[in-house]
Each structure stands twice: as C-alpha cells, then as structure tokens.
C-alpha cells in the first residue's frame, strides 16, 4: 500500500549540508507491520516525517525519490509530488495515514479537551454531526481501554497519566480510521507494564481494522514482538531488512549482529555485554564508503572505506547492504576457507 524508493533527505544547516537519510527504500503492506529500528541519529524519524510532508523548511527531498501510496479507494497517490500545504496532503494526513508521536503531552493541545480534539479530527475526514463524532470519540476511547470514557472525553490532557495519554493519542490517531499508521517510538516513554498494554492494544486494533503500520523504535525486543518485517537503519541508510524472525535469528550485517549482541538478556546474566565499538559518527562527518566501516570489525581495507556497498538480495523481501555478502566476496571467502581446510587436512 505504501512504496518508498530512493528517498534521500538533506538539511541545510549552519555547518553546511547534511544528509540524514540516503537512498532509503521500503514498502508497507496492508495488515502488516514494518518495524524500523536504529540508534538515535540514524534517520528513522526523519524518513517517516517525509511521508507526511512534515519536514522543516530547510530540508530538501531528493528529486529521484518516489513515494507511492495507494489510498482506501485504490487510487495511487504520489506523495513526493504533493505540495506540503495543499489540500491533497491534508486529506491524507490523519484520514489515510495516521501518526502517533513519542511524546503524547507535546502532541495534544493543552487548551482543548481530549474530546474536542478527537471530534475535530473525526469531522475533518467524515461528514458527521458533532453529536455523532462525539459518540465515535467515546467509542474509540473505550476501545483503547480507557475506563469511564464518557467522563474522560471532557478531560484535558494534563488530567491524564502518561499511559492514559498515550492511549488517548492512539485513539485520536485511529478516530479518523486511517489505513496506515505511523507510530514513532510510541512506547519509549512508558513503563514496561503500560508498554505491554499499549503494544497489545495496537496489535488488537490492527487485527480489527486491517491497518498497515510503520513502527519506529530503538528497542529490538519490541520489534521482535510487534513487527512482521524489519528494516535496520544506520546513519540514514537501511543496512539490512527482511522478515523479523529471520533477521533476528540470522543477522547478516555486522551492525545488526552487534546491535543484537549489545542487548542485555536474562539468559546470559553473568556474561559481559558486548557493545558495538566506537561512537556513531556525527552527521556532518559522514564516512565515505560503507557508513558503518569505522566501527566494523570485519571491514575490508580498500573496499569498505571507499565504495558504498551494494544492496544484496538474500531471498524474498530480504536484503543486506554489505560487501561481505556480495557474490564475489562470498565465493572468495569460501574458496579461502576451503583452502585452509585442505591445508590443515594433510597435517592431521
């Protein structure tokens, strides 16, 4: 339902041009969840904001970027060609593509009640009376598990606790019945028990409404539980993507491998954690070649630090951007390994 190809975004800053997103391509299918995972500064939020045309004025989306969205009526819309303040994108925002932000307090207006804000969103996209919209809002609050929705609908955002606000935020995003939901770190600020509730709720609603979803987070544990597909981002490029279970069981990119090893696990309590060595480079000191080569333990001198690795397909929907996985290098490595085995055999 959504296809993004060759998306690059650059910002004009005081220190020159920076490009936080480079050549990113991904697709979302109806009823499925795409997880985007990466450290801070990897460009995961920026690339989804481009989908809603919510980027600030000093940004530029590359000309070759294509963002194609198939709306509820089955028409194809080229988001990249829409004007950011035009009528068409405003029809998409909320009505077709809903968005949940990380900080629910910052995304509600403090001076209107939750109900007022939901009624406004519903009436923007549906031709209903205020009374009907209010009934819908109450039903939606009930659906997201807010107790006493009839009373809560007239409360202001500050009267709710963090978990409840986040659920109200989900209710607001879903009130206009979007076909695609973009959730940007929706559970990061919540406690684990509340997080579990919200994740369960989102999975239930997705099943009921058949939405497509993009779930942005830095927590691979959450990704493993909610997303069917995952894209791992590092410094603005997707380094690995594929079905979640496959990527987590058999990570092929050294960065994904490092990320998985760095997660503290209850199964290995007394083992030392193994962090990915080094720091994430700052966006204005982007390394040449593979963006990860400065921290990669398996880098190939003269190749990884000079040339951008190609995206190697590994199977249906599965790909990795790494020189180690290219056919030439793989066969080379296998030949080397076989030679080593042969050399060892006679000695035994």
């Amino acid at each position, binding site marked *: 339902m959504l296809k993004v190809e060759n998306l690059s975004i650059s910002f004009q800053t005081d220190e020159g041009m920076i490009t936080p997103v480079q050549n990113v391509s991904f697709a979302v299918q109806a009823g499925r969840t795409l997880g985007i995972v990466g*450290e801070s500064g990897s460009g995961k939020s920026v690339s989804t904001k481009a989908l809603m045309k919510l980027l600030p004025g000093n940004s530029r989306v590359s000309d070759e970027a294509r963002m194609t969205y198939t709306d509820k009526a089955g028409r194809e819309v080229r988001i990249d060609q829409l004007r950011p303040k035009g009528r068409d994108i405003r029809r998409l925002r909320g009505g077709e593509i809903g968005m949940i932000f990380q900080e629910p307090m910052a995304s509600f207006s403090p001076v209107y009640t939750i109900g007022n804000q939901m009624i406004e969103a519903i009436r923007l996209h549906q031709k209903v009376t205020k009374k009907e919209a209010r009934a819908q809002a109450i039903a939606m609050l009930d659906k997201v598990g807010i107790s006493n929705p009839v009373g809560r609908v007239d409360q202001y955002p500050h009267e709710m606790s963090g978990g409840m606000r986040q659920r109200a935020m989900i209710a607001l995003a879903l009130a206009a019945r979007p076909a695609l939901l973009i959730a940007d770190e929706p559970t990061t600020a919540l406690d684990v028990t509340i997080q579990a509730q919200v994740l369960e709720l989102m999975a239930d609603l997705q099943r009921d409404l058949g939405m497509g979803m993009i779930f942005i987070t830095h927590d691979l*544990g959450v990704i493993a539980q909610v997303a069917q597909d995952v894209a791992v981002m590092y410094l603005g490029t997707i380094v690995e993507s594929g079905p979640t279970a496959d990527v987590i069981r058999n990570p092929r990119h050294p960065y994904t491998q490092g990320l998985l090893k760095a997660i503290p696990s209850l199964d290995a309590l007394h083992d030392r954690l193994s962090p990915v060595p080094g720091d994430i480079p700052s966006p204005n000191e982007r390394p040449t070649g593979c963006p990860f080569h400065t921290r990669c333990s398996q880098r190939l001198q003269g190749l990884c630090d000079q040339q951008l690795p190609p995206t190697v397909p590994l199977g249906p929907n599965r790909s990795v951007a790494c020189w180690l996985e290219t056919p030439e290098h793989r066969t080379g490595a296998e030949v080397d390994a076989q030679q080593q085995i042969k050399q060892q055999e006679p000695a035994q």
Partner: protein
Amino acid sequence: MTQDVLIEVRDLEVCFDIKTKKLFRTEVQQLRAVDGVSFDIRRGETVGLVGESGSGKTTVGRAILRAIDPTDGDVIFHSRKRDVDLAHADAKELRGMRKKMGMVMGEGAHSISDMAHDLLRAFRPRMSLVFQDPYSSLNPRMTVRDIIAEPLIAGGLMRDRDQIDQRVREIAARCKLNLEHLRRFPHAFSGGQRQRICIARALVTKPDFVVCDESVSALDVSIQAEIVNLLKDLQDEMGVAFLFIAHDLSVVAQISHRVAVMYVGKFVEYAPTDSLFFKPRHPYTKALLSAIPQADPDATFNPMRLEGEIPNPLAAPSGCRFHTRCPMAQDICKAKVPEWRELAPEHFVACHFADEAE
C-alpha cells in the same frame, strides 16, 4: 564482594506536603513518597532498584544522600572508623560531613575549608550521584576538566592545581575519556561520552557509594552496554558500591548483585539477582518480568494483565498497596499490610501469599 554493610536503611520515610490553593484556604495533603523502607547495601556491591514511575525510587536515592530530608527513619553510613546516622545529622554536622564525603550536591558543599585535609584523613566515607540526562547535568560553560575537578574543590579535598590535574587525568583515563578532550566544552561530546564525564565527576573523590539514577536509560543500546561495562570495571577497580535506579529490568539484571522492587512507596521484594529474576515471589515482580519484550522471535510474549494504573500515592490503597491490581488478591490483602519477611536466605518479600506464589 565483601560482606560488610556500607549503608543501612531502616524504616525510611519521606513525606512531601502537597499544597492546593482553594478559594479561601490552602489545603495541605501529605504525600508519602517513601513509606517505611528498610534495606542495606554492602561495600563494593551493586543494588538495583526498579519500579514504575511514581513508585518513589528516585526519592529513596536522594534521601540516602540527604539531598532531601527524610521525614523519619535512619540511614546509617558505616565508615571504617565510626558509624554516622545521616538521617539524624543536624545541619552543622551535615555540612561538615558533606565536605568530608565530597558530595556533589547540596548547599553546604561549595565552600572550601582549611579543615578539609585533616578531616579527610580521619574520615573517608563519600558518596555521589550520576543523573539520567547527560545533556542537562553538565554545565555548558565549564570545560570537562573543570567539571570533573569541581567535586574535589567543592569538597575541599584538594587545592593544589597540579594535584587536581593529576587526579582528573587519572579518573578520566579510567573512564576511557580522551585526555586531549579535557579542555573542550560539553557540547562537543556525544551522549555516551557525556555520561562518561558524569561518571568521572562522580568518582573523582573516590567515593564509597554512588547513586546512579536512570543513568543509562537515555542512551542507545550499544552505548548503554558500554556504560554498563564501564561501571562494572570501575567497581572492580575501586570497590565502590552502586545504588542503580532504573526502570529497565534487563539492564538492572545485568549490573546488579541484588535487586529491590518498589511499588507506591514500599519495597515489595528484595533478593539476589538470580533469585529475583528466576524465582520471583511477589505477583508484581512477576508482572513486571512478564512485560519485558525479548528480542527473540521464539519467545512467547504474554504479559500478565494488570488492571488499571498505578494508584495515586496521595490516596494509597489500604493493606497491601498492590491489591487493587493484583490477580491473586483476597480479602486479607485489603485489610492487612503484608509483613516484610525473609522467605529464603536473603530473599525478602512483602506478600500474604508469597509461599503459594511459586
């Protein structure tokens, strides 16, 4: 890990007065943020403290450091020479002690005293604090060298510039900071590096005890792993004890020797890490553990359903505070506060049904 107790907390209570302005009068309500907490921390050990937001875990950390005054109870610091009751020390005594302890915070900590060197020799217990947000806890106008040196100067521990420089460089090297960067300002550093500066600042006085309040929560996983490893190494080298406050259970499990679980101002369980994570007794601990999403596609994610939200501490439930959300709650839970008892060696729990909970 040695077995001798460093800090002993007995029936600690912290109340805040909440004032609400009504039309003609001001209503004062008492919020019991910490309500009768007892535990101890041994020399060179890490105690993890977990709980949801609003459970009072930060207040426990602050009260131990006397950054806020406890309403009741004792915090006893077992120095090698003599025991000191921090909760009862009066202002004058506390001012002297803060200097001796090289505490980073507090109104009395910023004057330089001639007495410091004598007192330092007589008295070496020290504690300090590492905050959550490495962006807002470093003064942007001070160089890294000055930031790290400040506790030494504020505590009156050292006055000689060369001596201070030497100590700063020593601790910075231990915290894996580049020594050439000491002249830079904090804005030039990434989150992980800043947190290392904060750790260096907390450890420069060679304290016996450091409170880490959500110190890795704001960091990315790979940097988080790096800081956890660094804290472990520094503990091995310097024998410092940590109170590690966090809401992320898997990080706490990784770093702590013992873990305490807090719920609305009270401890519900306190046990060695393995015992708490693999044989939890309290239903709240079980609920928390079941809610951690594991990065394993084979693991079944089936969080225990807790009804409702954390109760407001202004109107804490009667009896066991968890009874409003507990799936096992009986009538006795509403009526009677469960006893804090040692079910297995070192495994403390407050639940009427902890024996059956297995």
